[in-house]
């Protein structure tokens, strides 16, 4: 298929009118119609119904539209980044992070974008999934890292990024630090600090182990919770993708295994600015499971 054919088809999807679409694409109507016919031949069927006063997408047309849009956006993104660098794009890259999802994993991708476009400001926004979804739909956020299980409307594209596992964070010198890996049995007598930003690992532990743990609610940033762990208030179950510094001790939690999958989401069919579009492409290229 040719770039121009795809471009014409997307214009036709918006206008549903051959004459107007051809005008918008600056081609004659016969040339426009021929290009659409060639695309239809390649895709193996009619993309549009053409009736006297009505042009509508066929099922094939509706099926192919988002994929062709993604290809066109990718073609634009690949050349737009080259152009944005030449002219020194100003703007921002706004990334949402679900509660307790670390920025460390994607930080190298953010660095790449920022080195390419040094005048682009970087903004992270950590919030509840529903807030981030609304932020993306309202165009306040470019994309977001979210737990796979959270509710997302159809309009969001999502790509699997990695699976994170729970680790136990202990104050330095805690007796449990003598073990390499910990089980539900090991931490039965401990107080677990829980908050929105704990990734729901404690709740899942309760379900999986079938018993109640001693919980201490504690809302705030992960760093503040870690301060309380260091002060000896309790232990925490957090994502292995976060960074922890001594004197805290971190041990693998092996039984039951507590994991959650993290996806990258962005609004389907909405062209992103070159910084965001290429950040998404960079993240999709990699395997973050290691």
């Amino acid at each position, binding site marked *: 298929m040719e770039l121009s054919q795809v471009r014409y088809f997307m214009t036709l999807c918006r206008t549903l009118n051959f004459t107007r679409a051809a005008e918008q694409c600056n081609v004659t109507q016969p040339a426009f119609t021929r290009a659409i016919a060639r695309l239809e031949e390649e895709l193996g069927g009619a993309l549009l119904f053409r009736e006297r006063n009505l042009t509508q997408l066929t099922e094939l047309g509706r099926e192919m539209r988002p994929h062709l849009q993604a*290809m066109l956006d*990718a073609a634009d993104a690949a050349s737009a980044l080259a152009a944005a660098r030449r002219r020194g794009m100003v703007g921002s890259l706004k990334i949402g992070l679900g509660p307790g999802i670390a920025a460390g994993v994607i930080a190298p991708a953010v660095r790449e974008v920022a080195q390419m476009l040094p005048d682009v400001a970087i903004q992270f926004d950590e919030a509840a999934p529903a807030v981030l979804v609304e932020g993306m739909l309202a165009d306040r956020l470019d994309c977001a890292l979210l737990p796979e299980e959270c509710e997302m409307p159809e309009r969001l594209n999502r*790509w699997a990024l990695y699976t994170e596992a729970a680790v136990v964070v202990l104050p330095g010198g805690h007796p449990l630090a003598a073990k390499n890996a910990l089980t539900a049995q090991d931490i039965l007598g401990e107080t677990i600090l829980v908050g929105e930003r704990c990734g729901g690992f404690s709740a899942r532990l309760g379900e999986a182990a079938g018993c109640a743990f001693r919980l201490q609610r504690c809302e705030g940033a992960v760093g503040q919770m870690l301060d309380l762990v260091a002060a000896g208030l309790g232990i925490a179950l957090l994502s292995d993708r976060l960074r922890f510094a001594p004197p805290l001790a971190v041990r693998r939690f092996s039984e039951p295994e507590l994991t959650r999958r993290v996806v990258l989401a962005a609004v389907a069919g909405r062209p992103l600015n070159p910084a965001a579009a290429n950040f998404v492409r960079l993240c999709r290229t990699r*395997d973050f499971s290691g």
Partner: protein
Amino acid sequence: MSETLTSRLAQLLENRRQNAGWDAAYLEILEKLDREGFVSQILAPGSAFPDFVLPSAEGRFVALSEQLARGPVVLGFFRGEWCPFCRLVLGALAEALPEIEAAGGSLLALTPETGGLALKMKRFHGAGFEVLADVDFGVGLEAGVVFKIPRLYRERLVAAGLDFPQRQGNAAWCLPVPAVFVIGTDGVVAWRFANVDFSRRAEPDEIIAVLRRL
């Protein structure tokens, strides 16, 4: 060199064609793309290759214009890490890389696959050249090499457990024709090899000869 790439590809093809189902799917691709005059849509010598920036297997950005500032670029489209024909070609190119570089060129291999598969492909061959992820076929579309996979071939891919929507992060069920371009330092395509038959590829010696003539 003992055996040419062309003869190794021909052997692999002959082997595959023993399977009647595979053969029918293969012939369907050739017939459909030939009928459409597909090759005539592909960027031809004399046209400027559009500048692009793509993510590399290692997660860095690579710009065509920067590569061209150092010398001519050999740019090849590949179907994916799963493709045995592409494996033979990548192996041959990895072997020929010192000569390509000695002729002043550099090599960029583009794959539509995501999620770490570009890196897997690169490591498999211990490739010293850049493998780039052409996410959602953006550059492939610009070059005119992307086609929707005909029904029989798609059914075989599915039966073989190849989940393209997952591998490519895109459910379009497309592939690139594995064309190779030699792009001069002026950004213009100096030479191209394109064949709808994915078992027909450019010989590394031919590419090196083109680079030497530039």
